[in-house]
């Protein structure tokens, strides 16, 4: 989508900055990105905030070579489905890794990074990306 309005971004800063998701007290399901209704229990569910560890592994990935508006300077970059250890999966960029080294099952952890910026003078959007856990996978000098 490219840019996001300030209030739309601000509403989600807890999730984007701290990876705070939701857990259903009734069934135990963990949701991230956060939801305000449990998909299983619906109205009978009761969601509470839960901060995620940010640890997980790569479930699938791609290298974006034709970027959308706002990501032209980042391309090529690795995007992945990261399966978090608490259960949910997220879509995020992988940083500090050579695209050729990424593999399904690679262990990763979240880091706080700049996601995109709204031109030279506009808002800078921060959030999480993931980097390899194992030293061998981290991009060398």
């Amino acid at each position, binding site marked *: *989508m490219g840019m996001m309005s300030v209030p739309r971004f601000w509403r989600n800063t807890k999730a984007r900055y701290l990876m705070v998701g939701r857990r259903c007290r009734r069934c135990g399901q963990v949701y991230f990105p956060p939801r305000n209704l449990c998909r299983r229990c619906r109205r009978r569910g009761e969601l509470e905030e839960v901060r995620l560890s940010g640890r997980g592994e790569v479930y699938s990935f791609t*290298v974006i070579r034709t970027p*959308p508006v706002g990501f032209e300077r980042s391309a090529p970059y690795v995007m992945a489905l990261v399966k978090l250890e608490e259960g949910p999966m997220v879509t995020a960029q992988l940083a500090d890794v050579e695209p050729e080294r990424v593999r*399904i099952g690679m262990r990763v952890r979240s880091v706080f990074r700049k996601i995109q910026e709204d031109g030279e003078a506009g808002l800078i959007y921060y959030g999480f990306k993931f980097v390899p856990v194992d030293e061998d996978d981290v991009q060398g000098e």
Partner: protein
Amino acid sequence: MKRVAVIGVGLTKFGELWDVSFSQLFVEAGTAAINDAGIDGSDVDALYVGNMSGGRFIDQEHISCLIADYAGLTPIPATRVEAACASGGLAVRQGVMAILSGMHEVVVVGGVEKMTDLSTERTTQTLATASDSEWEAFMGMTFPGLYAMMARRHMHEYGTTREQLAMVAVKNHENALHNPYAQFHSRITVEQVLASPLVADPLRLLDCSPITDGAACVVLASEERAKEFTDSPVYITGSGQASSTIALHSRERVSFVDATYNAGREAYARAGREPGDVQVAEVHDAFTIGEILAIEALGLVEVGAGGRATEEGETSIGGRIPVNTSGGLKAKGHPVGATGVAQVVEVVLQLRGEAGGRQVDAEVGLTHNVGGSGGTAVVHILER
């Protein structure tokens, strides 16, 4: 379910149509369909139109009214239907339901998209709105990227090869050579697909459907009314639609499309048919992996065997179950809102025996249209 007749079909040429406007596209396809049906505009009770994003592509909402106006069909009720790339398929289903409800007897269903007025970057951005804007697109994900991750996972789980993906594109380009309405009339080879630029690994440019302008239209009628206009209609005998999560990351699995499976199951049940009865299918190959995922979830091949079936020619014209005889989204073109309607047009032409150089021998056909990365799917069964 009771049958609904398709009594007329019409298409525009698909492609980069710089000199043709949005409303011209729709009127051209609609006029062709109404001529084909042999009806008059005054016979039409209602209009449904599939359109993904007039608002972003051409700064125009209120598409239904615009089309009723330019088609000279006011004051009939006109309704726009939107579900990203499945908009057209859903419009067909709305038309079917309008007739089955008894509310209307003759319904025009169109689909239209004018995509080439925007730059490629803006078009890419617009298509990405079919995903979760806040948690996929915002993170830098693109539409080809989502399908690439599905492809990667399919290759990992089932051993589907890069060459097998390419063979989907090669086959569909071959089929499009015989479709005068198709965007591309160019034969391609596996080597050319594998040498084309990477868009989102492992998908390359020639794995992706193009950006296309175009419109498609069908005229539907109740079985009773259809007899006034034709002796040999094609019937829609089954319709199914399903939803799933909008984001790929919220699904239990990404190498199988649950929405396609669920929509197919409903359509087969309503038609009293099984996958083995289908003799020709138009499926949603926005990306080559999309066709493999579709034929597996629709039960046309075994789960995991879509790549191999393609390689062995099972889905080619002359094979066990010809898929995308029109050239598919890949080679016929993919004007997103029109695609689901155009699929019905192709199967009707096949069942009537009017498909020219791409004709197959079939009495039962299927159409399958997907919105987003599988958040919406709609399936129709057609029979003569």
